[in-house]
């Protein structure tokens, strides 16, 4: 019996290592591996470690309901990575979370419009000029911008169908395989850079990176940016100020800025005050 107990205790010691640090928190990421949110959290981790923060990352692989539920009940210091799109959900939806306030806003990591891009040999503006059937790849709920696809459909002389991909990675693979004629998503510029698409329009208010605002086609899609931000829970106020400053600084460092640049993400709000960031975020939450 003693031998059995000894083996049990030894196994427990080997398998479970617990570390306790004051400046500890867990990133909760709603998406899976290889997504921008996870990549940025990974890129931030070494810098945070140097500054004394002990971090871990939990991925929810698209299960926003499980993450929302966890956020509601957790007692651990946590940073939720969330986007303004999720605030478009109905209040009674399982994935709904209230927008952050200045007290728990850490930083807007990046923001970007969705781009409409013609894939492969599809003529860039054909969807708005030539009758035919056009398939647009969009991301799965809750990232599907139905009012944008509705506006495109209304402006097109052809038949517009949407094809749902589980995430931006799947959209990129679909574009590489030239399964659809168009792609609508923030990853559009990445697909364009890989030579698999030509982006023509964006959901922002102005011309951006050679693309025209979709608002010119239909006013209802004027001025929409997707924003990803980090908000805290259970982090003491004293550490919160420090974390906000540390993260703002790290977001301006070379590896992160290179990452944002290659994906054509905008980041200037990440150095603004918490009040300004919350204000900027709240203004974006509209259909």
């Amino acid at each position, binding site marked *: 019996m003693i031998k059995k107990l000894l083996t049990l205790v030894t196994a427990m010691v080997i398998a479970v290592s617990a570390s306790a640090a004051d400046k500890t928190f867990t990133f909760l990421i709603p998406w899976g591996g290889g997504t921008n949110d996870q990549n940025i959290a990974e890129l931030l981790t070494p810098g945070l470690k140097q500054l004394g923060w002990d971090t871990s990352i939990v991925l929810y692989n698209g299960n926003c309901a499980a993450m929302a539920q966890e956020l509601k009940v957790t007692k651990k210091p946590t940073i939720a990575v969330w986007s303004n799109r999720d605030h478009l959900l109905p209040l009674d939806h399982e994935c709904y979370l209230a927008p952050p306030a200045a007290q728990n806003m850490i930083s807007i990591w990046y923001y970007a419009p969705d781009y409409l891009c013609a894939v492969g040999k599809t003529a860039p503006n054909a969807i708005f000029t030539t009758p035919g059937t056009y398939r647009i790849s969009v991301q799965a709920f809750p990232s599907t911008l139905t009012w944008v696809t509705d506006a495109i459909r209304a402006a097109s002389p052809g038949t517009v169908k949407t094809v*749902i991909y589980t995430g931006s990675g799947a959209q990129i693979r679909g574009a590489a395989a030239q399964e659809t004629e168009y792609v609508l998503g923030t990853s559009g510029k990445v697909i364009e850079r890989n030579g698999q698409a030509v982006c023509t329009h964006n959901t922002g208010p102005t011309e951006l990176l050679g693309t025209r605002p979709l608002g010119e086609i239909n006013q209802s899609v004027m001025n929409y940016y997707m924003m990803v931000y980090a908000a805290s829970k259970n982090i003491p106020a004293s550490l919160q100020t420090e974390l906000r400053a540390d993260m703002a600084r790290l977001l301006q460092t070379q590896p992160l800025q290179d990452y944002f640049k290659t994906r054509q993400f905008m980041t200037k709000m990440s150095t603004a005050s918490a009040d300004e960031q919350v204000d900027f975020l709240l203004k974006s939450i509209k259909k």
Partner: protein
Amino acid sequence: MMIMLYPFVSHLEFNTLIAFYATMITCGQFSSSVVGLWLGLAGDVTTIPVLKERREIINSNLLWTALYRTGQASAVATLASVVMLGILMQFGAEFRQFLRTDVFFVILIMVVFSALGWAGNRFRTNLLLCAAGLVGSLIGYNQFLGKSILTMGVEFLVGGLPFLPVLLGIYAIPMLFAAMSDMSKMNLADAGSVDTTRPIQLVPAAVMARGTVIGFLTGLLPLIGVTVSASTAHYVESKINSSTALSRISSAEAANNAAVISVLFPLLIFGVAIQPSEAIVVNLLTDRGWSINQLSMDTYLKMGVGILFGIVACLAFCVHYVTQMINWFVRYNRYVFYFIFALIACDVWYLGMDSDRSVFYMIVFAISVVIGRFLYWKKIDPVPMIFVWLIGPHFWPTAYRLLQLYVL
């Protein structure tokens, strides 16, 4: 093996984890052949060719040579397969058709059909297991429906039934007890004598090439690839007039090891696991932030070095210590298995710690152990359920996308 090592590998970065997995599986395959050669014990179905030829090898006093030859064939075939895998991955990345939804769906359908035809059970049993796997995979929040299903109001189930505790309980623990039971019945009297004076001959290149190519190609067959690789190569080699027992087992060993590498292709290009140990790897990689088609030169280098080092170390270890090692395991098997059981239970607790769900994970694990023991008692192999569970999250979104692309 992968399950037992979970606490030690769960924090490895992508390249190291892939290299570790490839090395471990190669060494594992080789070790089971050594046990087959030395003791006449079947490690798994891939050792069947070795067992068939063992008597002739012992009668010719070629055990020592056979051991070296299988080691050499394993190392060369594995390294050659790593190179072929690299070429295939490059080809796969360039050849965009691999990324098409319909191609992926065909792979998923092949996995389903393989699960339905799984040789370990009757068709009707496989059908029930597949249905159970499908239900298991659907529990929780459904991204496409935008709501949770099959959770029966249990909040913990919104995140889905945790796969690893279920896998560990239903599959690993019964396997562990089965191994413990087998070991207690083991008879070491049949261990072969070794003539170390016999000159070591290298395996003919043609034999290794045949085995490697056959194994690499069969390894691409979902679910059955690794299982049939050794027997296929052995069969082909036996049809060649000049073949000997040594060339037949060398070819079978080369095929076996080539298959465990090529089986990585569907995993790396599509993210689909087609054997249980891969399921653990996919789960680990997904949790660690893996996206498919991420192999780099660093991955190949680590795989190459790892495999080479692993085979040489394994060969040296097996040659010198195989009998003592197996004797030791037989003598202390109870403690070894209790230790492993405790380790697995701690893994489950550890898995749930990040999301404060250790108790929930332990409950799922305990229930799974009971179900696993029941299935084992009824001689039902749960593998079809595991595979359908694994592909479930891919299956419905892919099927729906296929409809949107070509039908709706």
